[in-house]
């Protein structure tokens, strides 16, 4: 079955709006990370968040490991937030292999 699933697949926002991206993950996945792939293709670490809540400026993330989901909140979105947001977690076996979701493509319009 699907190990890491993200929703929504696509999101269009007006600048200044808030949004929530969701990542569901299976029992065989843990140690969640969120990444932002900007329009230039760079993969930027946002949060390493196996559990709990973290905040960094306008972004925050919460992982509820017992319920197998993580949420990424973007507040007061800006055009520079556009790109693809990925969540990824480690598969079983302690190999360090990251299993990625299919991504949420965010477009923030001015």
């Amino acid at each position, binding site marked *: 079955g699907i190990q890491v699933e993200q929703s929504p697949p696509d999101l269009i926002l007006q600048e200044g709006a808030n949004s929530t991206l969701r990542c569901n993950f299976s029992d065989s996945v843990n*140690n969640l*990370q969120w*990444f932002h*792939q900007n329009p230039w*293709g*760079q*993969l930027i*670490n946002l949060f*390493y968040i*196996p559990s709990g809540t973290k905040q960094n400026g306008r972004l925050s993330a919460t992982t509820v490991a017992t319920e197998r989901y993580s949420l990424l909140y973007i507040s007061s979105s800006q055009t520079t937030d556009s790109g*693809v947001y*990925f969540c*990824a977690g*480690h598969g079983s076996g302690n*190999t*360090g*292999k*990251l299993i*990625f979701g*299919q*991504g949420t*493509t965010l477009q923030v319009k001015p």
Partner: protein
Amino acid sequence: DTAVSQTPKYLVTQMGNDKSIKCEQNLGHDTMYWYKQDSKKFLKIMFSYNNKELIINETVPNRFSPKSPDKAHLNLHINSLELGDSAVYFCATARGAEAFFGQGTRLTVV
């Protein structure tokens, strides 16, 4: 200094050629990876090395051969390039469970 750097950033080559992509990290991490991002933006692991030793080979064709001359470098050599090899290739390192990615190499096979 860039923590994980890949060269080249772009690579356009003809079918049948052999090419290499280089990756260097200055983070002092023991584990390095190669990931492939296909045209649908899906990211999947190819190889993992820990202290120069191959840990994961994720059923990648034999035409792909990783080489780790030392802990700071993990290069990817590809023989007899095929059209289907066109993708973005990412090098990554890990500190514990947290991964850090290079800027990617966009390979186009024509």
